Structures are given as structure tokens and as C-alpha cells.
């Protein structure tokens, strides 16, 4: 009943917040475009036979010398920009979502357990979290990536690139989830329903995930949104630095890295269009995160 009211209230706030609506529409458009990229995109950027060098460096349609077939122009290889971006956003979103999911599962499990059991386990988890919090996420991700490069042989390296990157990002973002989950769990631990479940002799795993977890979902949802944006940004930054995805399977960050080569020549669209997409995606997710925070935190309103 309360959940229903909350949902209605959230809906009410949503339709009265133009910023949240625009952000949701932008994010939805990019997410749908990325999800259905293989069906929407004009060419397959991974398939060399689907595009031709003769179509290279065509500007977007509103500029002189454009080919109306390629709405936002082509890059130096003759790849349609829209197709590259849709496939790039697909990879960026996949890595972002996967990293966020892993970070959530890991962080929430550790946080719940730390809050539930307390004592030495709690102390160890929180000390690790403190140390990691002192290091900026990008440094942690770079370090984990570097270690993976050292441990894995070169041929497996290339195949597992996406997963190494996902894991590196996930391991640098779990701390937020763990801290929030722990703090919320500590609050719930004093409530009667938890005490009752303990008295009834239910197993700790069941108490943590069936009883406590649904009650700490609100704040976690906010962090999930904000961290999705962080994960996408981290991936883009790593790929831009040349540590992330290679040029033959480009994410948005890799596309921007490639576009940098055209900064000094006139082909502005190769750099700026992927950049615009990345910023639009991240800004809209952040705006949605801010909106959710307001919904779940009435005091800030």
C-alpha cells in the first residue's frame, strides 16, 4: 500500500518536472537506438564489406558535399557515423550496465552482511572501503586493468577485453553500494520486524535478502542511477586514454579518441557527434539520478 502511494507520488513528481521528462526521453532514445542497433543501423561497423572507402569523410547532410544517405556524415573509413555511434553506445551501455550490476551485487551483499553481522567482518569490509574511497575510481580502474594485462596472456587479453574492462569498472564502484547498504541495514536492524525474524530463527541469508533488502531499495536505486553514469563515463575515459576498447570494436570513448585525430583538420563531425551523444547520455542519466534522489529524500525538496 505504501509502496503504491510512493509510486504514485513519484509519478506525480515526474510529470511535473520538465527536466526529468526531457532527460528520460533522451536516455530512452539512446538506449532503444543502442539496443536495436543491428536493425536500425545502415551499416555494420564491424563488417568491413558493408561500407566503402569511397564514401569516406562525408559531412552531415546540412553541410555542402553531403550524401543524403548518411545523415550525420561518415568517418575516414567510410563508416556511417550514426551506425558507429549506435554500435558504440551499445558497447558503452552494455559495459556500464554490466559493471553497475556487478558492483551492486557485490557491494550490496558485502554491505548487508557487514551491517547484519557487525564485528570483525564489518571492520574489515569498511577499512577496505575507506582505503578505496581515498583512491579516485579512475586510478583503481586503471590499476586493475594494468594487473589484468600482466596476468592474462595476450591472445586471451583481446577476447576478454570487454569483460576485463567491466570488472575493472565494477571493482572501482562497489564501495558506494557497500557503504549505503550497510548504513541502511544498521537502521533496519533495530526495527521490530527484523528482531521478530531473528527470534523466529530464520536463517541470516533469508533475513538479509528477503526482509531487509526490500526496505533499503530506495537509496540503492539512486546510487545505481548515479553509478551507471559514472560507469559509462569511466569506460569512455579509459577507452579515450587508449586503455579500454580497441578501434575495431569502438565504444563512444574510442570513437572520440579516433575523432581527436581530426581535430586539426576540418572534419569536426567525426569528433563532436560522438562527444555530443556521450555527454547527452551521461547528463540525462545524472538528471534522472538527481530526480530520484529528490523522490526518495523528501527532506531535500
Amino acid at each position, binding site marked *: 500500500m505504501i509502496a503504491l502511494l510512493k509510486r504514485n507520488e513519484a509519478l506525480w513528481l515526474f510529470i511535473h518536472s520538465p527536466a526529468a521528462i526531457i532527460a528520460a526521453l533522451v536516455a530512452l532514445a539512446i538506449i532503444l537506438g543502442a539496443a536495436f542497433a543491428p536493425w536500425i543501423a545502415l551499416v555494420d561497423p564491424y563488417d568491413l564489406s558493408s561500407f566503402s572507402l569511397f564514401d569516406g569523410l562525408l559531412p552531415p547532410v546540412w553541410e555542402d558535399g553531403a550524401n543524403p544517405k548518411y545523415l550525420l556524415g561518415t568517418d575516414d573509413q567510410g563508416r556511417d557515423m550514426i551506425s558507429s555511434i549506435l554500435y558504440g553506445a551499445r558497447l558503452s551501455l552494455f559495459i556500464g550496465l554490466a559493471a553497475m550490476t556487478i558492483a551492486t551485487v557485490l557491494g550490496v551483499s558485502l554491505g548487508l552482511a557487514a551491517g547484519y553481522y557487525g564485528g570483525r567482518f564489518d571492520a574489515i569490509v569498511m577499512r577496505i572501503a575507506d*582505503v578505496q574511497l*581515498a*583512491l*579516485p575510481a*579512475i*586510478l583503481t580502474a*586503471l*590499476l586493475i*586493468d*594494468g*594487473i589484468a*594485462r*600482466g*596476468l592474462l596472456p595476450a591472445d586471451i587479453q583481446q577476447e576478454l577485453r570487454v569483460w576485463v574492462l567491466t570488472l575493472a569498472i565494477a571493482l572501482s564502484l562497489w564501495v558506494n553500494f557497500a557503504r549505503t547498504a550497510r548504513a541502511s541495514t544498521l537502521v533496519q536492524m533495530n526495527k521490530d520486524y527484523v528482531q521478530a525474524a531473528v527470534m523466529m530463527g530464520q536463517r541470516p541469508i533469508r533475513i538479509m535478502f528477503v526482509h531487509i533488502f526490500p526496505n533499503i531499495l530506495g537509496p540503492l536505486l539512486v546510487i545505481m542511477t548515479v553509478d551507471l*553514469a559514472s560507469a559509462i*563515463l569511466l569506460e*569512455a*575515459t579509459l577507452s*579515450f*586514454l*587508449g*586503455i579500454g576498447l580497441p578501434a575495431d570494436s569502438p565504444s563512444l570513448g574510442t570513437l*572520440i579518441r579516433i575523432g*581527436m585525430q581530426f*581535430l*586539426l583538420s576540418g572534419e569536426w563531425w567525426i*569528433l563532436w557527434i560522438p*562527444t555530443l551523444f*556521450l*555527454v547527452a547520455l*551521461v*547528463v540525462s542519466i*545524472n538528471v534522472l539520478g538527481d530526480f530520484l534522489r529528490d523522490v526518495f529524500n523528501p527532506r531535500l525538496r
Partner: protein
Amino acid sequence: MAYFILKRLIQSLFVMLAVAFLAFSLFRFVGDPITQMTGVETSVADQERLREELGLNDPFVTQFARFTGDMLQGDFGFSYRTRQPVAEMIADRIPATLELGIVALIISLIVGIPAGVYTALRPRGVVSQTILMTTLIGVSVPTFVIGIMLIYLFGVQLGWLPTFGRGGTVQIGGWESSFFTVDGWRALILPAITLGVYQLTLTMRLVRAEMMEVMRSDYIRFATARGVPMRRLYFKHALANTMVPVITIIGLQFGGVIAFSIVTESVFQWPGMGLLFLESIRFVDIPVMGVYLVVIAFFFVVVNLIVDMLYVAIDPRLRVKDAA
């Protein structure tokens, strides 16, 4: 006071030991140092002999102790990639990164503190709203995009400023500085702004929040009622009480500045430690990675120690609590 600092010193020592241990584990377990040092034609017997000579068969604790001892004497080993001593490679790069970071921090404070005070005092004004909107964008736009935008605008379109490298530098006792040439300053502007923007938004938001908090407190209301002039009230009474959190963020931001300098240095091809660290990751140059970590941790610890001492110097209440 002395007890407080001693406690902090001991804590710092443990942090450094932990980081040294991490660097040592990297060095010891990620990739085999022997295969890195020898070629394919080295026989197994020779490899074993080398392993014994280098003490890689010794107990773990002995090896770690030797590693730490070497580090304390300034012996950081050799790079896998360039075969040069790591200490020299890093030392060459430290001035570039520190100068960039310091200028970025100064920008973030000089712009961030007044902007934070202003937006706190006039929260509904048009200027404040504009500043707040801009910072929201500043938080969402990634550092490297800000760098590219600055390069495009001031480097490519307007052609006012150089877009890569450090420009002219002057050697001062082994410290390669770009503070003493016009060219060096011109090269420093864009990277420093890029690095400073994110920190600036943090500084501004924190000062704003603190200032609003302080303005609500009883002593400010009392001072207002007593008829203390507004300017004196804002800048002497209120701002002084926001200084402790501001100093905290300078300490915290230092880590951010160092980390994001990796990105900024990459965008502007700034020859600092961050660029070296990136190269070392790309080539799996473990010794350089490890030493970079230790050096960064060292700076971090020193800055935080200074911050702790400043607390005590700035806020008399801490001294009282310490004595009690």
C-alpha cells in the same frame, strides 16, 4: 598537539607500508620478473641461477623487507620497457605534474571560494542560478571532453594558446619548471583549467553548503541583530568558520587532481607522471606502475598530514579538545 601529530605520523607510516606491500605484490606476482629480464635463449639453469642471485627464492618476508629497504635508499629498480632506473624516470616527470596540479588547485580555490560565498548569500539571484546550472554541466561533462573543447576553441579556432607539451622550461637545480617563461605559462593555461574545472565545482558546492549552514547559526543572527556591518559579518565571522571544511577538501582534492591529471596529461600530451603511468600500463611495465603508486601515496600522506596540522592551527577548539 604533539601526541596528535605523533599518532598521525604512525598512521601514515602504516599507510605507506600497505602501499609498499601492494607495489611489492604487483612486482612479485604479476608476471615473472625473470622472464621479463631474460630472453628466450636463456637456459632454465641460467634462469634458476639468476633467480637465486636476485634472492627471489628467499622467504616472502625477507624479500619484502629487502624491497622496502631498497626503496628507502632510493633504489626503485629498473623499468622493463626502457631499462632505465625507475627513480630517474619518475623524478624527471614529477615537476610537470606538480606544477600542473598546483596551478589547477589554485584556480579551483580562487574561483570556487568566492563563487561559493556569492551563491550562498544570494541563492535566488540570476547570477547564482546561472553559476549553479553551469557547475551541474561541469560535473556531468567528462574531463577529457572539457580538454578537447578548450583545445578546439582556444587552440584550433582562435589559435591563441598551444595545445600540447609544456612549452619553454627552465632547469633550476634539477627541477624543470615552466613558471619562468611566457611560453611555459601559455602552455600551462589550458591543461590547468581542464584539471581545475571539476575541482572548482566541488569547492564551490562545498563552500556554498557550509556558508549557508553558518549563516543560519545563532551567532551570525546575533551579530546581525547587534548591527555588525554586513561586509564584516560575511567575510570575518562567517567565512572564517567555513575554512576548516575548505582545508579538508584541499587535502581530499589532491588525490582527485593527481588522478585526473592522468586524463589531462593524456589530452594535452603533458609530459608528467600520469602520462608515464599510462604508458607503463599499456606496456605492462610493472616496476614503473608500482613506484608510481608509492610516490602518489607518499604525496597523499604528506598533504594529509599538513592538512591535519593546519586544522589544529586554524581551529582553537581542536586544541582544547586535545588537551582535555
